[in-house]
């Protein structure tokens, strides 16, 4: 019998051992840190609200709608080049990701 076969045979019983739960899972579930999780979510929610307020304020102060209208007029007058089109698509993708992230974040808040 080789060393490897000897060791495989010796550890066979240990490999097949399945430990019964005996309330272990319940003890773990009772210890889960719900408090710190909701406090970190609250901080996250406050930070999101702060960012939204800043964005809206800047949009109003800098007359964001004029910038958007100007962009549309420019696009109609001169069709965008491939590079500009790529930049626009990338911006839309980033904006989309931010919105999706925000929706998922809100769903998580509802869960807690």
């Amino acid at each position, binding site marked *: 019998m080789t*060393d490897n076969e000897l060791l495989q045979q010796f550890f066979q019983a240990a490999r097949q051992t399945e430990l019964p739960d005996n309330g272990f899972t319940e003890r773990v579930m009772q210890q889960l840190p719900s408090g710190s999780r909701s406090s970190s979510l609250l901080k996250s929610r406050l930070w999101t609200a702060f960012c939204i307020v800043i964005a809206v304020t800047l949009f109003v102060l800098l007359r964001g709608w004029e910038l958007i209208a100007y962009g549309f007029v420019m696009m109609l007058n001169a069709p965008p080049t491939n590079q500009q089109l790529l930049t626009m698509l990338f911006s839309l993708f980033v904006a989309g990701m931010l919105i999706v992230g925000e929706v998922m974040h809100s769903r998580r808040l509802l869960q807690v």
Partner: protein
Amino acid sequence: MGRLNDITLATQVAMFGNKRAFDQIVREYQSQVRRFFLNQTLGDEMLSDDLAQETFLKAYTHIGQYRGTSSLLTWLTRIAYNVFYDYRRSEKVKMECETPIESMAATKSSFLTLQSSLHQDIYQALSLLKEDERTCITLQLIDGYAIDEIADITKMPTGTVKSHLKRGKDKMANYLRQNGYDR
């Protein structure tokens, strides 16, 4: 449990704080994680359960870091190894003055879950190994991990894992032959 199911459950916990999904994870993997600690502590059930509990609590708070590149069990075993490593470091001073871990199998027999004499034999044999050798040996021969997976779990270089396995296997084989297990 498949990798896809692992990722689905981990995502549910990370994104929506779904505790039922985490309950399912603990139920599925508690046996392997507790067995890992039983092997490292040479059968100390109370200590193993405490460390396993700590492992799952860490997994819950860091579940967002699970990327799905390895199985959830491998990821949990990596956390378990780190938990045991931290425990070992914090207890090192105490253990130098008190009973070393190598003799725990004899002194804590009342805590042994696995009452069969064969399991006591296994812990007795494992007590001959250094801690790193024991970790590598049990991860390979009991938990069935490949050498690169053991290196990933323990963050040891592959060559070091191979050396630990070679030395550990030589010691174990000698012990087993001396005690008539080859007959």
